[in-house]
């Protein structure tokens, strides 16, 4: 059993628990409304909640900013998150692994799926230009990258990937309202499973609200969030493909 490592919020003095909250309640400002906001904040575990402001933000609605001392603590020692376990590789290292160990082009197909038209993220990973100075997969001699763009249906994506014999499928989801990204992502995994070739392909999931844990939960092999560099993705893919080739 590992030692506990309790952490609390910190404002002014160590462990004072200070947090800030803001919200709207469906009541007009009044002394009772202020008290309701305090009680509401208290329900969240804030001690001595202080209603810093209460303003009419619509007829019958008040906006509140509250500060208070959170009574909650988190045992940081108990927090475990799966992390994409690849070491960072340089462009040259990646090229040379492909050349020497895989000995053929690694094929990837990417798309922004469903109703989602946010291509900037997937373009950043795939297109030559890349992201923040890190060139995209198209820039690698060892990769063959197909970018199907936006609003691609899962069926189309799966079909194309199969047609070109993709080693990996890269799915981008940016719109997350009412969890449509999860549904969409899961639907692709299910589709490929039902078609019986899940084991032949790596499935990567990415977007500003995606993390590795979520991706694993949905049945992908990895998840990539905000700030991902193309070389992170390339490194992950070649390591996995190499392992497969060498098996």
């Amino acid at each position, binding site marked *: 059993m590992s030692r506990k490592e309790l952490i609390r919020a910190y404002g002014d003095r160590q462990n004072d628990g200070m947090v800030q909250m803001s919200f709207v309640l469906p009541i007009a400002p009044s002394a009772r409304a202020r008290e309701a906001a305090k009680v509401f904040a208290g329900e969240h575990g804030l001690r001595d909640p202080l209603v810093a402001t209460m*303003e009419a*933000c*619509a007829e019958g609605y008040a*906006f509140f900013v509250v500060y208070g001392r959170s009574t909650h603590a988190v045992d940081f020692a108990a927090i475990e998150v799966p992390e994409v376990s690849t070491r960072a590789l340089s462009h040259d290292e990646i090229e040379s692994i492909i050349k020497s160990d895989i000995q053929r082009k690694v094929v990837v197909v990417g798309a922004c799926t469903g*109703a989602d038209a946010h291509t*900037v993220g997937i373009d950043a990973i795939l297109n030559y230009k890349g992201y923040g100075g890190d060139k995209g997969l198209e820039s690698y001699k060892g990769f063959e990258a197909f970018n199907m763009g936006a*609003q691609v249906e899962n069926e189309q994506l799966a079909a194309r990937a199969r047609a070109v014999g993709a080693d990996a499928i890269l799915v981008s989801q940016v719109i997350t*309202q009412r969890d449509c990204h999860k549904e969409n992502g899961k639907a692709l995994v299910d589709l490929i499973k039902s078609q019986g070739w899940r084991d032949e392909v790596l499935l990567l999931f990415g977007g500003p609200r995606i993390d590795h844990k979520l991706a694993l939960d949905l049945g992908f092999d990895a998840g990539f969030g905000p700030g991902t560099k193309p070389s992170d993705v390339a490194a992950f893919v070649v390591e996995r493909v190499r392992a497969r080739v060498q098996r």
Partner: protein
Amino acid sequence: MVPVDDRKVARCRELADAIAADVQRFIDVHTTVGVERTVLRAYGVSGVNDEGVPLVNLVVDRYREAGLLDRGITHFLARALARGARSVQEAAEGLAYSSILDDDSTGPTREEEQLAIADATQAALDRIDLAREKREALKRVHAPGAAPLKYVIVATGNIHDDALQAKAAAFAGADIVAVIRATAQSLLDYVPEGATTEGYGGTFATQENFRIIRAAMDESTRNFGRYIHQTNYSSGLCMAEIAWIGAVEGLDMLLNDAMYGILFRDINMCRTFVDQYVSRRLIARAGIVINTGEDNYLTTADAIDKAHTVLASQFINEAFAFRAGLREEQLGLGHAYEIDPWIEDSFLIELAQAQLVRQIFPRHPIKWMPPTKHKTGDIFFAHVHEAMFNLVGVTTNQSIELLGMLSEAVHNPMLMDRYLSLKATRYVHSACKHLGDEITFKPDGRIARRAVQVLDEALAQLEEVAREGIWDAIGRGAFADVKRTRTGGKGYSGVLKKHAGYMNPLLDALEASP
């Protein structure tokens, strides 16, 4: 004021006009399924079948499949009327459902047709004019707020929540309320019906939804004594139909761009060019202000390197709009504050662009978009970033200001986000009200030099686009770093070359409008 060489501006306009003229030759001899459906709607055809497919779609699709649509759906409608249908609706139902299809072989003469449809054409025009008059009357009683007008979006997916949030926005000081459309609506080749309560990323644009929001905004207008504008999107595969709905439901503005659908929704360019023309003919008559979408270019392309593409596109959008009968006062040309905030002097670069656009388009109600691309989840920083945007807006006297939302990188704006944004904007606009009148820019300073550079680059781009034609220019990614082909993209199959006997008296009337 920044230095603007009038001869360069004139040359830009000349080139843009040539670019539009080339496309107009195509437009004039083509129609689309969207245009034909619009005509049916304008004549009063309404309703859906059991599966929710609008009658206008059933009619148009049937005649397209039969290879007859190139004559214009009005032709068939008029024939049915001439043959005794008691109403337009009855005529349309006949076209959709009757067991025999009108194969155009025998029947009424063109004169009989024209006679049969004339009243309906006039009625359609009257509906537009009536809606316009109603709006103008309300505006006479309750004048709109001062420029920059504060524009916010609501996007709950549920039209009833939208109405509540729209009223909340008006309460907090909004001048313009947009109901953002559901994520994929622009790719639907029909307009959904009725009040809707489920949508991702926004709420469906339907005639009933437009009405619900109009009623809410009229109520707010009266409550707050300030005219509240309503806007929605007339882009996508139903560009012209939505323009019609907007025109008769009293919308004040519409997002409407000659090229947005091509670039950002991968809609076929032939389709879009024809649709935008017809949509704008309706908009011109309705006195609606359009908002163009050049701001979007800077979400995919770099805001500093590609600033000139925004200006070049504004000239092109203007040229298209003039050809559709829009006046300058109806042209809310779009641009945006999308420069990386961490670049030194980013504020100066933006100031230059905003001032340049203002001077080149002095009578146009410029639409000024907030930072979005470089927003992160640090809502506090985002709020400050927007304050600087507001400052540029009021200093350079932009007309329509889309307010930034501190939660831009997180979710569609919520009630509190809009409240905070409106409050902060009211402050900046008031605290800096006369700043623009008080300051002048160094004649050869950073701001002035930047303005000159952007105009020069826009001119160079327009020269190039004029040389190659817009079709090829878009093909090589001239705008927004996005490439599209002439026959690629969605909706191409809905484009038809007009038959020699093509009939569209409504469009004729709109084209004859003053």
